[in-house]
C-alpha cells in the first residue's frame, strides 16, 4: 500500500497546480488555426482542381476512343463483309457455271431453232437473256441485255400479233426484216459476251483450283514440320550418344590412370 499512498500524495499535490500560459499563447494558436483553415480551403480547391482535371481527361479520352473505336471496328465489319462477299462470289461462280451450262444448252437450242421459227427463237432468246440477267453482275451486260430484251419483247408481241391474225403486209414484212436484223445483232453481241463469261468462269475455276492447291501446300508445311521434329529428335539422340561415348572414355581414362 505504501507505493500507492506515495503516488497519490504526489498526484494530489501536483493536480492542484495550474500554470498560466503566456499572454500571447492564444494569439499564436489562433494564427496557426487561421493558417490551417486557409490551407484546408486551398486543399479543397486543389482537390476540386484534380477532380475537374480527371473528369476532363475522361471526357477527352472518351471522345478520343469514340473516334478511334469505330475505326477499329469498321475493319472487322469490312472483313466480315469481305468474307461474305467471297462466299457470295463463290456462290455466284457456281451459279455462273450452272448458268453457263444452261446457256450452252440454250445456245445450242437457239442455233437449232433460229432458222426454223422466229417465235421460238425469240422466246428461247428471252429465256436465255433472263437467265443471264439473273446471274451476271456486269452493268453493261445487263443494260445491253435489257435493251435486247425490250426489243425482243416488242418483236415477240408484234410477231405473235401477226401470227394470230395471219395477215401479211409488205410494211410488216419490211418491219420484220429490220427487226430480224436487230435480233441477229443482239444474238451476236450476246454470243461474244457469253464467251467472255465462259472465260471468266474458267478463270474462277482455275482460281479455286489454285486455292485448293494452297491448302495442300499447308499440309506440306505440316509434313515438313514433322520431318524437322524427327530430325531434331535424331540430333538429340546423336548428342546423347556423343555424351555417353565421352563419358565412357573419361571413365576408362580414369580407371587406367588408377592402374
Amino acid at each position, binding site marked *: 500500500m*505504501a*507505493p500507492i*499512498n*506515495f*503516488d*497519490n*500524495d*504526489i*498526484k494530489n*499535490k*501536483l*493536480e*492542484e*497546480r*495550474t*500554470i*498560466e*500560459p*503566456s499572454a500571447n*499563447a*492564444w494569439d*499564436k*494558436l*489562433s494564427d*496557426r*488555426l487561421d493558417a*490551417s*483553415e486557409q490551407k484546408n480551403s486551398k486543399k479543397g480547391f486543389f482537390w476540386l482542381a484534380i477532380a475537374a482535371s480527371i473528369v476532363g481527361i475522361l471526357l477527352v479520352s472518351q471522345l478520343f476512343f469514340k473516334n478511334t473505336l469505330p475505326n477499329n471496328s469498321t475493319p472487322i465489319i469490312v472483313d466480315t463483309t469481305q468474307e461474305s462477299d467471297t462466299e457470295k462470289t463463290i456462290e455466284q461462280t457456281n451459279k455462273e457455271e450452272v448458268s453457263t451450262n444452261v446457256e450452252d444448252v440454250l445456245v445450242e437450242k437457239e442455233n437449232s431453232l433460229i432458222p426454223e421459227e422466229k417465235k421460238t427463237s425469240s422466246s428461247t432468246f428471252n429465256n436465255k437473256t433472263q437467265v443471264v440477267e439473273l446471274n451476271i453482275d456486269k452493268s453493261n451486260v445487263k443494260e445491253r441485255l435489257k435493251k435486247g430484251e425490250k426489243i425482243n419483247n416488242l418483236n415477240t408481241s408484234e410477231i405473235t400479233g401477226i401470227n394470230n391474225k395471219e395477215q401479211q403486209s409488205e410494211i410488216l414484212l419490211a418491219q420484220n426484216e429490220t427487226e430480224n436484223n436487230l435480233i441477229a445483232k443482239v444474238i451476236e453481241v450476246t454470243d461474244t459476251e457469253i464467251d467472255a463469261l465462259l472465260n471468266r468462269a474458267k478463270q474462277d475455276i482455275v482460281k479455286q483450283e489454285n486455292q485448293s492447291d494452297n491448302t495442300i501446300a499447308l499440309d506440306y508445311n505440316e509434313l515438313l514440320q514433322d520431318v524437322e521434329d524427327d530430325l531434331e529428335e535424331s540430333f538429340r539422340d546423336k548428342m546423347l550418344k556423343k555424351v555417353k561415348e565421352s563419358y565412357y572414355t573419361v571413365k576408362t581414362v580414369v580407371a587406367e590412370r588408377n592402374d
Partner: protein
Amino acid sequence: MKVIQLYKNESKLIKKAIQNNREAQHVLFELHAPKMLSVCRYYIKDKQYAEEAMLNGFFKVFSNLKSFKSEGSFEGWIRKIMVRESISFLRQKKNIEFPVEEVEIHNDYTNNIKTEIEVEQIQKLIDALPEGYKIVFVMYAIEGYKHQEIAKTLNISEGTSKSQLFKARKMLQEKINKLNTMSNGTN
C-alpha cells in the same frame, strides 16, 4: 461568473468550436490551458517548451474536435492529447533512454509526504529524474495509465515499464527523504 456559465455550456462551446468559431475556441482554451500547461510541465522541464507542446496539443484538439464523441470528459480527452504531445516533443529533442542499472530495493516508503514540501519542490524532484523514469512515473502515478498502455505508447515492454516505475519511485523516495531530513535539521 461568466466563465462558470460558459463552463456549463461546454458542449455548446464544443459544437461551436467544431464549426471553427474562434470565440468558442478561445473560451475553451482559456478554460483548460492552465491545467494542460501543468500537465505538459510534468514531462517537460522548460516552461516555454512545455507551452509549445501544449499549443501543439491544442492545435490538434481544435483540428480534430469532430472526432471527440462526448463519451468521456472533454478534459480527459484533451489531457490524453497533451500527454502524447509532450512525449513526442521529448522524443523529437532526443531519444528517451530507459536506464536498466540495478537499484537496491528498500521498502522504506514514507507514508505521507510532509506538507512542508511544496509542489514546486516535487516538480523539481520529478524534473531531476532520468527521462524514462519520469515519463513512466508521471503516466502511471499521476495520469493513471496502466503498464500495458504505457508500454504501447513508449514502444517498450511491460516489464521495462514496471521496472522504470519502481526505480523512479525509489529515486524520488530517496530525494524526498533527504529533503525531509534537511528540513528537520534546519528546524
